[in-house]
């Protein structure tokens, strides 16, 4: 299966947050959607997930339009099995009253039904897949660390057996040592299950480790796209170049970056006086 987004538009008041954005994710592929705050990347993620309605354009999964309003349980579940989502903040993305097992069981009961034993087996399978043990299985979210919560959130998303997983800044709130664990986990899951990723991030270095293709967003538009390695090695659009130059490293010259940013902004301001 594949995801096709065509000419997506979304306006919030006077702000055109998403401006004719198109992209596709191949079956089992992984697309990085990169940009800074306000670039429209999270809005796109929410549109694809069905949490937000686009003002224009379409999102198709294997040819079926996700923009159509669905009624009824079967249609809802079918949509849920197309796309699932993992959110940025591990502290707010789990119901605080439910243990890990309860959280997962509820989703499995909805999608698989099955006997208690079968559900429990599936829970164990998922816990195993994301690397959580018995202690974490019985714990409430507040008893878990940020990294563990994010593993629970990933397991919950996988419970519906989706074909595509949207990861919205899914590692941004984690400490570096934990972030690496989750990034590796995500790579493993993709290898094992053949699931596709739409990986939304502000961090080019992180995107490099989980995506094959990347689309760079700036002010609601995609300004550059291509294979991740190629874009990172030889960025063509000045904004992509700025983004890459902004990442600190030894020998880094913040003054030059600041100048480049001002130049880009001045350039943009002269193009569209708003």
């Amino acid at each position, binding site marked *: 299966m594949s995801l096709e987004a065509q000419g997506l538009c979304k306006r919030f008041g006077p702000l055109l947050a998403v401006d004719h954005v198109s992209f596709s994710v191949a079956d089992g592929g992984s697309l990085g959607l990169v940009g800074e705050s306000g670039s429209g990347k999270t809005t796109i993620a929410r549109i694809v997930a069905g949490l937000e309605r686009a003002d224009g354009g379409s999102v198709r999964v294997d040819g079926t339009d996700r923009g159509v309003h669905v009624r009824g349980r079967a249609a809802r579940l079918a949509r*849920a099995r197309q796309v*699932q*989502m993992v*959110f940025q*903040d591990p502290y*707010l993305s789990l119901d605080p*009253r439910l243990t890990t097992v309860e959280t997962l069981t509820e989703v499995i009961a*909805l999608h698989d039904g099955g006997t208690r034993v079968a559900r429990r087996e599936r829970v164990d399978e998922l816990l195993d897949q994301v690397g959580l043990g018995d202690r974490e299985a019985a714990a409430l979210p507040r008893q878990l660390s940020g990294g563990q919560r994010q593993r629970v959130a990933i397991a919950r998303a996988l419970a*519906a057996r989706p074909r595509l997983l949207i990861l919205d800044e899914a590692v941004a*709130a984690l400490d570096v040592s934990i972030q690496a664990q989750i990034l590796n986990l995500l790579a493993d899951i993709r290898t094992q299950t053949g699931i596709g990723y739409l990986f939304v991030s502000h961090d080019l270095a992180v995107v490099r480790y989980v995506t094959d293709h990347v689309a760079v967003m700036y002010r609601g538009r995609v300004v550059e796209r291509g294979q991740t390695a190629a874009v990172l090695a030889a960025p063509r659009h000045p904004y992509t170049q700025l983004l890459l130059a902004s990442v600190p490293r030894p020998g880094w010259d913040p003054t030059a970056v600041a100048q480049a940013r001002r130049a880009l902004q001045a350039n943009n301001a002269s193009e569209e006086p708003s």
Partner: protein
Amino acid sequence: MTAVNTAAPELVRRRLGGRLRGAAAGGWLYLVAAGLLAIVVLVAVLADVVAPADPLAVSLSDTLAPAGPDHLLGGDQSGRDTLSRLLHGARSSLLGPLAVVVASTATGILLGVWAAWRGGLVDWLVSRSMELVFAFPGLLLAILAVALVGPGLTAPVIAMAIAYTPYIARLVRAAASQEAAKPYIAAYRVQGFSGLAVNARHLLPNIFPVVLAQTTLNFGYALMDLAALSYLGFGVQPPSPDWGTMIKENQAAMLEGAFLPSVAPGVCIVVVVVAFTIVGEGIADRVARREAA
């Protein structure tokens, strides 16, 4: 918006310190208040058994009798036993507010969640009608009801249930919108759960403690308002015992130096309302602590 990783440590510390103090001080106070309320409820239920005398038995020889072995809290204007009247009076004094908070909380939750979840026109309609009701203070609406229907508890209770609804509905709407914006609710929607299921199983249980805290506080307010109505002669009608009515009946006796018949029901009202305040704030504190954790 959440800060990326480090909260200011001094702030964390203050919260932690507050929690420890809260557990020590709020803990036992909360238990005492809850215990007291349980006793009051028990007394109200068992008033026939525990009351030493008939609350309606008039005895002119005991008029304004001082406290003593015959009448532990003395006699009132008509020589009725003050203690027995207090114990029986707990019934109407608690039942009225109970009806008010149950009805207003149920309606408020329904309207608030509905407005927050649906947004748009529904939200606008609910918010505007709540604003309309909000302009009528509870006591005024109750007095209006009495003016239309005549004295008694029923009309004021209905009127006050209506008047209290906006407070709950606003609170629920705000809490539910805030909760609905959290990613875990979005996650359940993406999972394919119906709106009803998400609300009933996840959103409501998570905001319920906040509502419960407000409801408990409202019980105290409703008790004061209904007692005030009885005091004005619009609520519970004499000779039925009620704390508000008792104060009205025996106010004149104060000028003769007989404080007990009117002061005792006053003390009962204050103590019960204080207990409701402590329990309500105890619940609110627990919520705050859970959020901070």
